[in-house]
């Protein structure tokens, strides 16, 4: 027995669906007034595979037909390329929800539905990026799964596990292994934050500066700088900035520089004594 019954959203001449769905084979549900364009699913990572999570329902409008799914599709990373951004589309194959990863972008129609460009039978569910080891990832340091609809705030963070130092007079990335990497939608802002403490072995009057680099070693507009009152005198830094980068993949990293001597930024395996960088994204 199929677990979904689809009707066109233009059924009865209405711009809304009246749908009978047999859910889980146990009961009959009457779904009324589904708006055109409905999507009750969120793209998530579960057990190493991408899948869908129902949110306040289980219906989705694909090319004008509303489907109700209770069996969630999965998408394994196996056949994809490393470190590549994919658009994840949902299509119906003989009543079965099916996920597809593609590097082909999307087009938004006049009803707000995002489809694979050139193929309206594939509705965009989200963005996902593979790691260098060809896996899907959704960790604090690698937020590589974003949902197109039913978005929520997502935190990303990383920290210095050991002290980091530089003697550079120009901005330098302090640790390339302790970035935060993330995806973002074009229409969403992100908030970046870095805080911690650092010191310099140079004498009084010399500067230690800290900032955040987005996709490189150019600092954002905000930064922290202090004049050493004495050598090896730790100073705290911290701040945030809201930013609207282009859609897709980005990374953020802590930058540092000194006017003389060597600057050292604190790191530790445990919280409470280490510099950290974080971001708030949506997806």
């Amino acid at each position: 027995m199929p677990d979904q019954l689809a009707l066109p959203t233009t059924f009865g001449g209405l711009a809304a669906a009246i749908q009978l769905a047999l859910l889980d084979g146990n009961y009959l549900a009457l779904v009324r007034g589904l708006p055109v364009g409905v999507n009750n699913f969120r793209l998530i990572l579960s057990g190493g595979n991408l899948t869908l999570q129902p949110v306040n329902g289980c219906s989705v409008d694909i090319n004008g037909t509303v489907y109700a799914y209770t069996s969630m599709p999965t998408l394994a990373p196996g056949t994809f390329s490393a470190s590549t951004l994919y658009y994840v589309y949902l299509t119906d194959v003989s009543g079965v929800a099916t996920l597809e990863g593609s590097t082909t972008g999307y087009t938004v129609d006049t009803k707000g539905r995002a489809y694979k460009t050139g193929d309206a039978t594939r509705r965009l569910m989200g963005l996902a990026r593979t790691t260098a080891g060809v896996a899907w990832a959704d960790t604090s340091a690698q937020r590589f799964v974003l949902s197109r609809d039913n978005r929520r705030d997502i935190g990303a963070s990383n920290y210095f596990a050991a002290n980091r130092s530089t003697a550079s007079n120009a901005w330098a990335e302090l640790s390339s292994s302790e970035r935060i990497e993330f995806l973002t939608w074009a229409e969403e802002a992100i908030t970046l934050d870095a805080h911690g403490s650092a010191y310099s072995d140079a004498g009084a009057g010399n500067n230690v500066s800290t900032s955040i680099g987005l996709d490189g070693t150019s600092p954002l507009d905000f930064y922290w700088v202090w004049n050493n009152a004495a050598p090896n005198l730790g100073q705290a830094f911290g701040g945030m900035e809201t930013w609207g980068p282009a859609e897709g993949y980005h990374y953020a990293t802590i930058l540092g520089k000194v006017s003389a001597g060597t600057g050292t930024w604190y790191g530790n395996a445990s919280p409470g004594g280490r510099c950290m960088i974080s971001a708030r994204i949506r997806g």
Partner: protein
Amino acid sequence: MDKIGPSFGSELRAAGVPLEGFAWGADGQLTFGPDVPQSVRDQVAAVLAAHDPSAPAPPASDGLTVDDVVSLLADQQGTTVDQLLTRAKSLQAAKAAPTPAQRME
């Protein structure tokens, strides 16, 4: 135990390594910016290979002693403040990167 100790920065200076655009970690991690040439990376690696992480940090000061300052003032009577500062910074730089030749000056 740390793999890179507090003396590493002064050792890089002593070896004449250009210091722009890279960083290091106490755990031995090196992070180079994309513009840092391979020749500099090789120099850093060479200094690291000879590095003793247990070596003490360089003096936690400008490297100038009271005697140094008094000597500077005595030698430079009649010069401008800017000239004195220039001499002081020169001496400071020399102390930050001591070489046998500089020690004999």
